[in-house]
């Protein structure tokens, strides 16, 4: 059964048709590579799943129930987690504070509840250990390397029982060794039965880790097939428009 199913989803901003009649379904424990050139509609599609935009037309279903999102918090409540391209980190806060941003742990009774620093440091530390990342929960994000920042952003998705993790270009701005780390992490999420949508421009990453590839061009879905039945050459052709539609 599909964990997320989109049916005839469209989005327009005034006269601009950003996403046009896209249908797709995502299974649990599956890694889906979402590819396409700049302006192909990937980001808009992801932002609809993340609750940033509402679709102009079409329906989204999650676990066979209709999914209507008004804001990002609701997506999170449904088990949809996003790793944003710019990582959405606050440089002036610690790693733990960033991991827990928007869902801080508190202790106390009734209205007298204070931030539970100890618990947040402890749990964030556990997650970093699980990710095999040398990231200290008490350090300011300002002082961190690209890989550590990535770890902080990814650690957010592991706080709750996520069903789907959307990753927007997670390997765009990091070193080769760190790319391998991030890909390992994606496999780690997959093995726990979490569906991962990997938005990427990097062909090798998608062919390395994904089970399926979806290609978008000018707002429409032009391919949706298993990695095994496709090739980088075909996907490149689909992205640029040299191949009109997947066979």
């Amino acid at each position, binding site marked *: 059964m599909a964990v997320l199913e989109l049916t005839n989803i469209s989005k327009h901003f005034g006269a601009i048709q950003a996403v046009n009649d896209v249908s797709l379904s995502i299974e649990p424990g599956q890694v889906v590579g979402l590819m396409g050139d700049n302006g192909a509609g990937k980001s808009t599609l992801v932002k609809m799943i993340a609750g*940033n935009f509402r679709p102009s037309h079409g329906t989204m279903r999650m676990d066979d129930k209709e999914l209507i999102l008004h*804001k*990002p*918090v609701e997506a*999170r409540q449904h088990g949809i987690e*996003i790793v*944003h391209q*710019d*990582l*959405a*980190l*606050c*440089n*002036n*806060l610690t790693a733990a*504070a960033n991991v827990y*941003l*928007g*869902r*801080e742990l*508190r202790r106390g009774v009734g209205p007298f509840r*204070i*931030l539970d620093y100890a618990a947040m440091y402890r749990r964030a*530390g556990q997650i*970093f*250990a699980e990710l*095999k990342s*040398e*990231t*200290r*929960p*008490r*350090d300011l994000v300002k*002082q961190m390397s690209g890989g550590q920042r990535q770890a902080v952003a990814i650690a*957010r998705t592991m706080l709750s029982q996520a069903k789907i993790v959307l990753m927007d270009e997670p390997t765009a701005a990091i070193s080769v060794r760190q790319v391998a780390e991030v890909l390992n992490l994606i496999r780690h999420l997959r093995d726990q039965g979490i569906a991962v949508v990997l938005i990427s421009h990097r062909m090798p990453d998608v062919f390395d880790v994904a089970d399926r590839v979806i290609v978008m061009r000018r707002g429409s879905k032009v391919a949706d097939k298993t990695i095994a039945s496709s090739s980088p050459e075909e996907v490149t052709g689909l992205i640029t428009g040299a191949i009109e539609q997947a066979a």
Partner: protein
Amino acid sequence: MAVTLDQTIAQKQHTFLSRLFSSQTFWVVIAVILACLFLSFATDAFATSKNLYNITRNITFVAIVALGMTFVIITGGIDLSVGSVLCLCSMVLAVTMHAGYSIEIGILASVATALAIGAFNGILIAYLGFPPFVVTLGMLSIARSLAMVASNNTVVFQFGPDHAKLLALGGGAWLFGIANPVLYMIVLALITGFVLRWTKFGRHIFAIGGNEHAATLTGVPVRQIKVAVYMISALSAGIAGIVETGWLGAVTTNLGNGMELQVIAATVIGGANLAGGVGTAFGAIVGAALIEVIRNSLGLLGINAFWQGTFIGGAILLAVLFDRVRNFRRSE
């Protein structure tokens, strides 16, 4: 010995002392203490109880407003209207009481005025996307003019049946001979410090100042919080206005003129960053203290009062210079 991953993660990079020495607030405290020591030896008048009483009381009005301003500045905003709002709230209190209403109703009207102005500023900034500088610059002009309208630009010095109560509220010393305004300042500073460090609201204020976009994406209610900080800032101006009315025993439409710049100077000297994301309650108080000590000392040392602005301006630049030097060292 091999260092395991767990040990690395558990390690603290900064000790208490290293954090202390790298904080701008700490060095400003040192500056205040040194200035006080120097003045006690250099002049006879400084370390007298009368002068100290004066200094502490003079600090309070700027400090109370600076506490509210700290919230706004941490979010990366600015509130230029506080001086005028202080005057308007003071005038609303005075006019209401002068008309024969009780002190409770006067304070209620004054606080309601402050909150309404704060909400107006906040909504324009958070929901309609106006730049904070422009909105509060407009309010600076509006609030002062409303104060003139409310009082017909006269001096109000008779506060109706509760006249004595109001003067006691602002001018009394209910606890150990400490002036009441100082007590209010201490209480408000403790509340501010607590909110900033220990509440979710405080954490979100820092997040907005650090990266507003990230705060929005992670589900922080950015707009509501922005409205709240401008309401807090206006409220702190209102409270300072009420207390100052009781202390002075008279209100003119000149009250709080130019105060916004002193308040902003106090927060910046105390370590708040106008770009947002940094600031403390203690810093706001210490900044206000340094400004007042400088002012007081110039008088006692017999230096022409025209030099005041130069010294206070110099203190602002020096405080920020410390911050720049630390950043240069870190980036190298």
